[in-house]
């Protein structure tokens, strides 16, 4: 496939995914905190078209899960009544949901967790946190990197020396250790929203060195171009030269870096939340959803608890393809 169409395809798919996650309030059948204590670790509901009597239904339906015997964790489908899947249903809170089934049945397309919360809903709501953390942290990193790189490249001299030595320092650190160390001495018990912004700023501020170096290189070569010298000789101010002629040159590098950094930062959020240093319950993030797998019993028995981790694979795949194509296009 041609490079340009690859870029559009990857961007389109990622936009779709981010759209679904942002519209979690509509796409997800339940709220992320809605519990059903009677249905811990219920397996994914199966969609049926043919009922127990062998009759064919045009509309898909589910059976209700019953734990049998009670407390055993063994679920059987109660085939006495079929619950049709309805689309565009009004929920208890008044908001419209994409699909749902009548009470008392529940539709768990991806199973439930320890508190009987719907995995699909939590996956979608959790994606908000994890994917957004990657995007915001990358924006922060690129902003800081652009600023530092532009100053270093344009001003040169001692300022350049200081900034670049600092960048080397940050590049030399094993960054997960640094991330941990900084997170270590920030308050541990904070609200999920605070934790989210704290995480984004810590992750974002640790990674500025690489983009800064790349931007500096571009700025260094761009500022010697003849058209920039011409603009300067016409009396263009430093700010004007940077904004109009030099910084637009860095766009390609910044886009490629964004596609490389975003998956790294998503993973950083997931890792920290997995270890209990990030966003905490009841707000889901793909990291803290995976944290239940630290219990061996869960790890061995309930495959659907792996889904937040498996969801990372296509996301990363698309970002990697995007980065490759962008890099190819820039050459």
């Amino acid at each position: 496939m041609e490079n340009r169409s690859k870029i559009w395809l990857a961007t389109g798919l990622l936009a779709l995914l981010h759209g679904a996650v942002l519209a979690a309030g509509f796409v997800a059948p339940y709220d992320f905190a809605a519990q059903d204590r009677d249905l811990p670790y219920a397996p994914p509901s199966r969609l049926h078209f043919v009922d127990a009597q062998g009759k064919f239904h045009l509309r898909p339906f589910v059976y209700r899960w019953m734990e049998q015997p009670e407390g055993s964790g063994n679920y059987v489908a109660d085939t006495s009544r079929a619950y049709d899947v309805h689309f565009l249903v009004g929920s208890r809170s008044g908001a419209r949901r994409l699909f749902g089934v009548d009470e008392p049945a529940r539709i768990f397309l991806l199973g439930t967790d320890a508190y009987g919360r719907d995995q699909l809903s939590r996956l979608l709501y959790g994606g908000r946190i994890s994917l957004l953390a990657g995007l915001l942290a990358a924006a922060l990193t690129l902003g800081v990197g652009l600023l530092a790189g532009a100053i270093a490249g344009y001003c040169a001299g001692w300022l350049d020396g200081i900034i670049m030595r600092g960048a080397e320092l940050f590049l030399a650190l094993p960054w997960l250790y640094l991330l941990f160390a900084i997170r270590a001495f920030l308050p541990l018990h904070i609200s999920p929203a605070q934790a989210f912004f704290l995480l984004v700023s810590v992750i974002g501020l640790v990674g500025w060195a690489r983009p800064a170096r790349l931007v500096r290189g571009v700025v260094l070569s761009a500022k010697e171009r003849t058209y920039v010298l011409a603009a300067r000789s016409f009396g263009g101010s430093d700010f004007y030269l940077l904004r109009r002629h030099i910084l637009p040159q860095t766009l390609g590098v910044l886009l490629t870096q964004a596609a490389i950094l975003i998956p790294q930062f998503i993973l950083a959020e997931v890792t920290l939340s997995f270890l209990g240093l990030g966003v905490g319950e009841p707000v889901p993030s793909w990291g803290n959803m995976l944290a239940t797998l630290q219990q061996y019993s869960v790890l061995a028995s309930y495959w659907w608890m792996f889904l937040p981790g498996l969801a990372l694979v296509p996301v990363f795949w698309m970002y990697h393809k995007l980065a490759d194509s962008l890099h190819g296009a820039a050459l």
Partner: protein
Amino acid sequence: MRYVATRLIHSAVLLAGVSILTFVFLRLAPGDFFADLRLDPQVSAQTVAALRAQAGLDQPLPVTYVRWLKSVASGNLGFSLAYNAPVAPLLWERARNTLLLAGAATLLAWLIAIVAGVGSAARQRGIADRLIGGGTSLLLAAPELLLALGLLALAVRTGRFPTGGMVSLGFAGLSVTGKIKDIALHAALPVTALVLGTLPVLVRHVRASVLEALRAPFIQAARAHGIPRRRLLLAYALPAAANPLASLFGLSVAALLSGSLLVEVVMSWPGMGPLLLEAILARDLYVVIGAVMFSTVFLVAGNLAADALLYVVDPRIRVR
């Protein structure tokens, strides 16, 4: 000789910089080891203040830094408040375990990467190349966390591999070969996770640099002389491709260290990862700093080794 000397000085400056940076970050942050104690109504404010003074946490930043430097000079690396012991012995044991893991993974990953990368470059767009290419991009998208959890699930389900720790219960009673076997069995899963995590990047780089070398004029000349393909690849192209790979070696050590942090926690390998996590949760200042410093030292050592390797494999550097 000058080359080595400048590298060493560079590393020393870097280490000093890292230590100052972590110190500043950690001391500027709110809260310390005694923060939770302050909430306890049974402990008076004076007691907490006295404890803090005893630990030296009430001193200004430069003073604590100089004290810490003195402690480093005497080989203690500060004092752990949670363990009530000097940091260095604690870290040494954990660092040894981490090195064991990371070292084995580095060796294995590079061996596989060179075989797969050269094989892939030998016939560009051939079947092997396509398979390896697809495999690496899939592995690249699979995070280490997922790999580790997946392997662990496999271990729990099959019961073939131990699911945590580094040694079995009856370790002390085993013979020397038994001990080695036991540790190897425990290390198998974490090492596999680490190798799978670092492999894709390495394979891609090996392939790219061998392909690059194959395009060089002297290879064309060698081919024209009728030198067989295998010999061309291994004796001509691979050494020419060694320069970028030697530089990558240092980076791969960094990636393995960061990766092993997580894998150790997931697979409860008694390395620096779990120690660091505990220290973070207990806000044990000097253990955190010690762990960061240790990992930086490993990293610097990895880079130095890469530079030395470069010096050996690339005659152009020796001339300079």
